[in-house]
């Protein structure tokens, strides 16, 4: 089947190229567009991006695997990312992670059977003053307790 951009994303990708004097510099922004479209970066997308930027698939692959936020496979609709770094851990990240594991019935790195949630542990998110906290998709949820966690998860489709 192969990967190609939607028309709008193609236009956006062409626009991105104009920002840099070298095509390769568009790699991270273009990978974000790919992930925006597909939910992750597939092998086909790697080939497509390599051709689009005139670099090798190995170049693209090296970048995809270096940065933690680029996914290599489809995960749940909503990505729950719990910070387990020092400051969050001092304020209860352990109980938060344990609560989510029990509530969702999955370990970190797994997707719930209904495909709704994927649970991950991540490093410092820059929210140390409002710990414990989690990032779900693009949003931070801070100063968490049981009620807040339940409410947030319930509100997600």
């Amino acid at each position, binding site marked *: 089947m192969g990967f190609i951009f939607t028309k709008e994303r193609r236009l956006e990708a062409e626009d991105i190229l104009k*920002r840099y*004097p*070298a095509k*390769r*510099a*568009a*790699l*991270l*922004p273009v*990978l*974000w567009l790919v992930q925006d479209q597909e939910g992750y970066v597939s092998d086909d997308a790697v080939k497509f991006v390599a051709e689009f*930027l005139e*670099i090798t698939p190995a*170049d693209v692959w*090296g*970048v995809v695997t*270096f*940065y*933690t*936020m*680029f996914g290599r496979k489809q995960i749940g609709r909503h990505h729950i990312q719990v910070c*387990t*770094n*020092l*400051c969050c*851990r*001092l*304020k209860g990240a352990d109980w938060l992670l344990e609560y989510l594991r029990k509530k969702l019935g999955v370990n970190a790195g797994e997707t719930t059977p209904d495909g709704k949630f994927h649970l991950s542990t*991540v*490093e*410092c*998110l*820059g*929210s*140390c*003053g*409002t*710990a414990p906290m989690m*990032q779900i998709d*693009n*949003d*931070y949820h801070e100063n968490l307790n049981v009620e807040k966690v339940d409410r947030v998860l319930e509100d997600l489709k």
Partner: protein
Amino acid sequence: MKKILTKNFEIPESHALKVARANGAYASLDKLFKMKPEDVTAEVKKSGLRGRGGAGFPTGTKWGFIPKNTDKPVYLVVNSDESEPGTFKDRAILEKDPHLLIEGIIIAAYAIGSKTVYVYFRGEYYRQWERFFKALREAEEAGLAGKDINIYTHRGAGAYICGEETALLNSIEGYRGLPRIRPPFPAVAGLFGCPTIVNNVETLASLPFIINEGAAAYAAIGTEKSKGTKLISVCGHVNKPGVYEIELGLPIAKFLAEYAGGTLEERALKAVIPGGSSVPVMTASEALKTCLSYEGCECAGTMLGSGGMIVIDESACVVRCLADIAKFYHHESCGQCTPCREGCGWIKKICDRIEAGSGRDGDPELLLSIADNMMGKTICVFADALAMPVRSFVTKFREDFEKHIRSGKCPSPL
């Protein structure tokens, strides 16, 4: 206390252009464009402003390294990668006063002769990127930004090492975030091989005041070697965690009592990391004798760093704290230098072992020996950023490590 960075933080909708302008945003530009670029650099040098990302290098001096008669484009890169554990102060500027940052960007770009600016955001700061992007569009439409310069945003994708300025440049160029050997320094050969200045968000946000009020007014605040104000983001076992603007030189004891609200449930203070997880930890008694300035922290054997203060009370296990820190650096090591790649992993293994109750005699010495083999032996200071916590935790809390090893378990309640 003069509010330079946080003056608009409490105003509703402070991020909107209309509100920002009503509260002084872009007022410095009239004066700025009447100055010669080299005079702007001289003014910033005179102010004593030091880089607020963590290294504390004098900003005006850094700008001065740009070659005078280069025919290559000069780039300004804004470091908004903020990922140092304990640090959440740049985020406050992005959320509450993005126009202050944009104004600072315009000032810096003018001073160094840059027509192209890249603002690098850590990938996780999506809402912050969104807010900044909207503010930038507002400023461009109002003709305040974008006339003589192009300001682009560039999102990272989860890599602490990309906060290191040369790794950041590689990340913009579309590579894995591996730091570069220096020399050459970015000011000579940086982004795309061209003269480049990388400045932190807070550093740039400090510039409008310096142009508006003058270098002398800025230098009148702070101490001999630490001029101006600094954002401190405090977290951990305090009653009022958050971002506070202080005059440099403020004693930590005063900061904890008057800003951070003291320790939770008045438990005894055990340790303080003043400037992000990369700087040496202080015991409670050391911290209570130290001031929040570059030289004050240096005298105490640590660093002001990013100003990300982590407060640890007696309920915490310091062995577990070091294990948490080791896990972070092991995860984030870019991997190109053997002492770092292997040292971080080894340190994590030992800390985990001690924490799990399988510590061995000689483990503390082994940790110190590994730290010695990392410190100063790598392309960038990431390795030092774990070596320093290891050295300070193990030396200053030696008893705690010994108790863990002897008893085969954690003696602390948490």
